[in-house]
Structure formats: C-alpha cells, structure tokens
C-alpha cells in the first residue's frame, strides 16, 4: 500500500465527475445527476479537473469522436463510465461504485500525456469597430458543462465576441424523448394521467432553470432547482416540493443581481420586453401551476409539452433562431442566451450528424 496507495483511496471518494450527455441520454443524465447530488460529489467543468468521465446515452459518430478526444485529455488516474440511455438507477449507482473501486487502486503516476490537438490558427477580419483583428474558429460544445446535449455551435470569435455562428448537431443513438414522453404516449393512445404530464413539465422547467442559473454563476439557486427536480421526478416527495418551491421561486424572482445579469439578453427573435428575465418568470409560473396538478388523475388530452406542441418539434425553431441571437454577443452573454433557449435535441429525429 504505502502512502500513495492510502492517498489514492482517500481521494477516490470524491472524484469530481464530469458528465457528458448524448441526445436521447436525458434519462440517464438525470439519474446520474440525482445520484451525484445524493453522494455530495461536486462536478468538474473541464476534462483536466476531473477524475471520472461519465457518458450518458450512446453518442453517434461526431459526438463519439468528441468524447474520445476529451477522454484522452483526462489526466491519470481517471476512469470512464458509459451508461446507456435506458440504464436503471441501480446500474447508475453500481457503475459509479465500480469506478471508485478502480480509482482507489494504487498506481504509479505517469508524467506528461499525449498532446491534444487544438483549434486552428487564427485568420483576420473586420471587427464591430471596423478594426482588422485576428479571429478564431471555435466550436462551442458538444462537450461543455450545462450545455444542451448534442448541440455544437460553430463560432468565429474575435476576442470573446462571436462574429459568426452556425448550429451543428452531434447526435446520439436511440429515440427516447424523455421530456415529451407523456404526451407522445397519450398521442399513441396509451393511458397517461394529467398528473404525470404535469410532473414531467415541472421537472423539465426546473431542469432548464437549474441549467440557466448554473450558467449565470449562481450555484446555490441552481443546486436548489435541481434538488427540487430530483425530488419531484425520482423520489416523488410531492409535499416537500410543494413546500420548498415557493421560497425558491421568490428568491429567484427577487434577485436584483440576477435581473441585472440577464438584462438586455434576448430569449426569442423578436425583442420581446423582458427577454431572459421574462423567460425565467414564465418557467417559474408554469412550474408553480404544474405542481398543483400532480394528483390530477384525468387522462391527458393535449400535446403541449414543456417546449411546445410535441408533434411540431419546437426545438428546431429554437435552433433556427440561435445563431442570430448569439451573433455579436460575448461568450458570457451567448452562454446565457443558449441556456435560456434550452433546445431539447432529443426532439430532432433524423437529425443531421455533423
């Protein structure tokens, strides 16, 4: 054993996992996030800071290559855990436990690893003030924390300002649309209660809120949104959720700093008054309403999913406006705008796989 062996065991209990999700891997992402929060493991936000790479869902070609590349940049000792999109909760917990056991094995630390390939050299072009400056082609995603699964925004950056943006999709195998599932099932003629749909809707908005608040750098509120989501979706502690949600909603609505940070950022193509601030308010309103209907046993008879009519693939529309909204924004603003749109790429069937 020796000292390094003991240290390895001591360190393995908090591996700072980094979670990568493929389209149609939403269910296992949610299970993993719930399990990580139950264990009190904090997330890593870059490959070099992690000891455990967790891949949820099955990536198709482009995403698979991206994951491979990220995996080569995870420093040793590191472990890779792959979970299928339909992995049950026990499998998730067991996979994490196994990774901890493997991480705890003593080994000799290596030195420098292979070098990573990086972005191409910059070229030049006029910036917004008419100066000719270097610009760099940088893809945002598909492996990025708090980012829609499978989304790639190919950008041209000058400084940290986006000059041009184009959306690509790095797809995943499978076909599950986790957030739309109750409505799709009802359309197929299966019996689904309105309560189940309301639960899924509230959880979906809480998930979007958790992501936006995380991108806004408000970890406390983001963790609270995600705890509410997990309790609602997996633990079904409806009473607890109904008690805790109003306080959370009040804190988010009242935060002047959040309003200030989100101010002037668009949530749709038409510069509607309020923009992202209003989007946050809408999510909170709809979540609050849905929480009242959790026990509604009547059969579901509409198709209004969390992002709109589930038959119409509303996320396609969100992706269509995305480039326009982020062009001219700096990275910080662009990340917030994307989190505010929060497209669900599970909705894209037969999506191009760039």
């Amino acid at each position, binding site marked *: 054993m020796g000292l390094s062996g003991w240290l390895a065991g001591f360190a393995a209990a908090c591996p700072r996992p980094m979670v990568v999700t493929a389209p149609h891997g939403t269910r296992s992402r949610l299970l993993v996030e719930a399990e990580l929060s139950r264990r009190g493991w904090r997330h890593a936000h870059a490959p070099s800071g992690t000891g455990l790479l967790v891949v949820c869902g099955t990536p198709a070609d482009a995403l698979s290559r991206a994951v491979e590349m990220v995996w080569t940049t995870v420093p040793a000792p590191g472990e890779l855990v792959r979970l299928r999109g339909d992995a049950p909760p026990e499998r998730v917990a067991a996979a994490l436990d196994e990774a901890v056991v493997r991480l705890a094995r003593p080994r000799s630390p290596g030195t420098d690893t292979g070098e990573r390939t990086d972005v191409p050299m910059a070229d030049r072009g006029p910036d917004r003030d008419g100066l000719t400056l270097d610009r760099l082609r940088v893809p945002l995603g598909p492996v990025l924390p708090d980012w829609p699964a499978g989304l790639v925004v190919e950008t041209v950056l000058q400084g940290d300002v986006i000059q041009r943006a184009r959306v690509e999709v790095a797809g995943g195998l499978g076909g599950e649309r986790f957030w739309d599932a109750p409505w799709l099932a009802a359309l197929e003629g299966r019996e689904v209660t309105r309560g189940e749909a309301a639960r899924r809707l509230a959880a979906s908005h809480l998930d979007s809120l958790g992501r936006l608040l995380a991108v806004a750098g408000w970890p406390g509120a983001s963790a609270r949104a995600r705890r509410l989501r997990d309790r609602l979706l997996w633990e079904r502690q409806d009473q607890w959720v109904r008690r805790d949600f109003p306080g959370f909603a009040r804190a988010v609505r009242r935060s002047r700093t959040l309003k200030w*940070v989100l101010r002037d950022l668009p949530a749709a193509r038409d510069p509607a008054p309020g923009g992202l601030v209003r989007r946050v308010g809408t999510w909170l309103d709809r979540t609050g309403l849905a929480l009242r209907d959790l026990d509604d046993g009547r059969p579901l008879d509409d198709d209004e999913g969390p992002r709109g009519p589930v038959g119409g693939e509303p996320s396609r529309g969100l992706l269509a406006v995305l480039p326009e909204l982020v062009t001219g924004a700096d*990275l910080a603003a662009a990340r917030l705008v994307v989190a505010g749109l929060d497209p669900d790429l599970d909705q894209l069937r037969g999506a191009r796989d760039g």
Partner: protein
Amino acid sequence: MGEALVLLGAVGTLALCAAVFDAVLAVPGGGAGEPLRRVARLLLQQRRRTRLADTLLVRTGVCGLLAVAVLAGAVLPLGERPVAEMAVGVVWFNAMEVGAWGALWLVGWGVNSVYPLVGGYRFVAQGLAYELPHMFALITVALGAGSLRFADVVAAQRGLWFAVWMPVAFAVYLVSAVAMAFWGPMDGPVSDDICGGVPAELSGPDRLVFQAGRYALLVVVAAAAVPLFLGGGAGPLLPPWLWTALKTVAVLALLVWSGRVLPTVRMDLFTRLSWLVLIPATLLQLLVVSVVVL
C-alpha cells in the same frame, strides 16, 4: 523569521478553512472532507500539457499567484506587528495584489487554449474596472489616517472604525476584494461557463498550486480589511492577535458566502458599474473624508 512562519501557517490554515466552508455550503450536510480529498487527488494526478504551451510562462503564473498573495500578506499586522514593517505598507499591498493580474494572464495565455485565454481577458478587464475604485478606497483610508503605514492606520481607528465613518469606501473595498480574488460574483475569469476559465487546462500539482494561490489571495484580501477598516487587533478582553483572527474569519466567511448567494456579474456590466457608480461614489467619499480631516 518566526513571524514569517506564523504568517504562512495562518494563511494556509485560513485558506483551508475557506475551502472547507465553501464545500459545506456547496453540499449541505456533507462535503467538509472534500477539499482535503481534492488535495490528495491533485497530488497523485498526472501533469498534462497542452500543445505548444509556453510552459515557462504558465509555471511563472501558477507560482506567481501564490507568491504575490503571501507577499501582500507580509505587511498586514498579525496582532501588533506585521512580518515586514513598512512606511508605505498600503502601497506595497496594492502593488503585490496587482501582481495577480500578471499571474492570471500568464496562465491564461501560456496554456494555448481558448477558454483559459478568455478567462485571462476577463481578469484584465475586471482588473481595469475594479482597480481605480479600489485605489480610491485605499487612498481614503490613508487620508483618514494621515499615513500609508498599516500600524498608523490601525492606531487612527482607536476611537471609531473606518468602516463606520467611511462606509462607501468599505463597501467598495469588499467589492474589489472579491474582484481581486476572482471569487463569487466576480468569478468570471474562472467561471463554469468557460469550463473553469484560466485554470481549465491545469492538472495535478499545477492546479493544486493555482487553487492554493487563489484561496491564499482571498484570505489576504479579507485579512487586509481588518487593519484598513475594522480597527485591526483592537477589542475588549481578548489579545490583539485573536481579535485580528476573529475579524478576519468573519470577513472571509462573508466573502465565501457571497459566492453561493450571488450570480456572476458579467464583465461589461461590472465595467459600467465601476465607471459610472463606484468611481464617482468613492470620489465623493474621498471628498467627505478630506473635509473632515481638514
């Protein structure tokens, strides 16, 4: 020599306390052991290198951050006396703390990767925004005390703490303190939206030393608020060193806590706030203090 060891020990202990407090806030009911486990993990972790990195600059920046934090702490009274007694201690503190700009920029540039580079950008922009209000806050203190020596500043607060009669300067100091240590609402240079920013490509010992430097800087800027605004070691019953420690812990806890309860402020917004609100406000505060001192 003895005092230098006390300083290093105090900064190290408080840095660990800050990390533990932050971990407990992040994971309520657990997480207290996380920072030490993280240290163990980084000690064992392999050191990774990016393509065509400027390793000399990166190492200079990583070690420089810790170095400037400790050097800035050298002029702070640990009770009654600092490690280095200087007639212009306040200027020394200011000069060292600006060294963090260089350290962060070197790391962000040197690793040759987009997100660290953006983080480096953000910190220099943040620095240019917070530095003028910060300097005016320090000048206000120096004017109130009639001296740039920390001991004189403490002595001048025997009757009334500067935090009480220069509230604007104190508030601006606290804002610039989190900005200086790129912490909490000012953590844009290392924020999650750019994959952790400046240290995004650091692993193993490099990341460990960088994080140690960041926490040390946070501790030192919190500790500096005590002699500058909170009467230093003055207080009833307890010895000065203990009062200094208690007040430092209180300020440090406030700064760490701010990171949980406030969103990150975007750099363009902060720059506007700084030029349009903070600078005029500190100038008015300076004017008021000048009139009172005259």
